[in-house]
């Protein structure tokens, strides 16, 4: 049941998953960026998890808003405002007591819109947009095909994983990796990878 309890569990699971992925994300960022993505995300999600534990929240949206504000004030870098805006927009469309398939699609679409509104990247520029875009699209397809909320999340995660993998051959044209020109090719985008980690945590929380 994707309710406020799920949202809280998601944040805790995300904090654990990001901590586990910290070195991996940092190493990816070391290759084509500035070696801080794992630390930025970890700092943000530890803070978010600590906040969410006993903050009052009635809806999924309340939790996501808290996450948004915390990420905004603790992450910094490019990822801070991008994920902050994503969670803020997602919070606005998740005010129902329990999220159905439509709500999950709306959450993902709003998050994607938030990332694009702030970062102005399109698909194929080797950013987290390459994970969020197929995730939102696959979620909509799954919903249309009759999947339940958890099934929609599953489809989104699978598509995000593929989307992240698709960034490897790409030449970066947004973010810090773009400074590398052709040398950015052959590497997984760290933000696309952290998107996968967050969606996997959402699914894990839904199954818990």
């Amino acid at each position, binding site marked *: 049941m994707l309710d406020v309890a799920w949202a809280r569990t998601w944040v805790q699971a995300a904090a654990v998953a990001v901590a586990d992925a910290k070195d991996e994300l940092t190493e990816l960022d070391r290759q084509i960026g*500035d070696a*801080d993505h794992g630390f930025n995300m970890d700092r943000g999600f530890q803070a978010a998890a600590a906040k969410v534990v006993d903050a009052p929240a009635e809806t999924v949206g309340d939790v996501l808003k808290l996450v948004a504000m915390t990420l905004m004030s603790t992450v910094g870098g490019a990822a801070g405002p991008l994920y*902050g805006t994503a969670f803020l927009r997602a919070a606005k469309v998740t005010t129902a007591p329990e999220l159905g398939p439509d709500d999950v699609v709306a959450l993902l679409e709003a998050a994607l819109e938030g990332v694009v509104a702030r970062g102005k990247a399109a698909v194929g520029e080797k950013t987290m947009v390459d994970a969020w875009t197929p995730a939102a699209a696959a979620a909509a397809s799954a919903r249309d095909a009759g999947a339940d909320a958890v099934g929609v999340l599953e489809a989104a995660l699978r598509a995000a994983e593929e989307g992240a993998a698709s960034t490897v051959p790409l030449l970066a044209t947004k973010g*810090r990796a*773009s*400074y590398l020109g052709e040398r950015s090719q052959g590497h997984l985008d760290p933000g696309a990878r952290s998107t996968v980690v967050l969606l996997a945590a959402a699914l894990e929380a839904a199954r818990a």
Partner: protein
Amino acid sequence: MKKLLNDPAQAVDESVEGFGLAHADLVEVRTDPLFVVRRQRPPHGTVAVVSGGGAGHEPLHAGFVGEGMLDAAVPGAVFTSPTPDQVGAAFVAADAGGGVLAIVKNYTGDVLNFETAAELADAEGVTVRTVLVHDDVAVEDSLYTAGRRGVGGTVMVEKIAGAAAARGDDLDAVAALAERASAAVRSMGVALHAPTVPHVGRPSFDLADDEIEIGIGIHGEPGRHRIPMASADEITKMLVEPVADDLGLANGEKVLLFVNGMGGTPPSELYVVYRAARRLLEERGVTVERSLVGSYVTSLEMQGCSVTVMRLDDELTGLWDAPVHTPALRW
């Protein structure tokens, strides 16, 4: 990795605390959220000049807080741009009723966080204008990049803007001069050895014992290409020529020449580079009217340097020469 640090997670806070103690006559360190602000407030109505960015580039930016340069500086985590609440709080604290000029190095993270901060400050009635520094000619300025990075030229833009604010120019005028300085300045850097981010514990990129990296940034980002180790004169040529070409420097022009150390390079080597850079400019018929040599925009303990050239006109020269009294720059 060996560094003079305690807990890496506390390194920025502790360093800024020490900085505040050492320069208590000039600056005040505020915490929660963290930023540095001038102790001596400028006269009411003066434009406040504020900058910031990831830590690890010291003395940039906090070292330039004081009379005639910055009114506040906002350090983020190492190589990570500060958050909007920090920047917004600095905008509000620095504002003296004349509005705020934000000088932002062109990185996605800095741009996005300062943008959000400007919205926060606006909500509190503080007007913020932003000028981007994007002087690094190593990055192609095209649709295919996030645009040129801000590197060494940031010192020039901050000095010019601060001098304009100190003489009483209004926000439009200060912003216009900062833009003019930004448009007149170009840089290019080289790394002999990459920096090690404290919480990472290994160098940001790997260079063989006989390789150097041309066109590096100041965040341990790898550069544009890697070449075998060369002499100082050869390396300097690889830095000066793209800078001078991009500026389109012509015979008879006057410039400021800034040779910047990356944190792990001693002054003796910077002066060898300065000598070579000056010769190359003079061969083009360009006169070096003002100079700055030292480690002002660092990348932790990276070994290497950058060369920055700013085209001068009388007004920019006058603003560069105007008095400045900060921990890192004073005359």
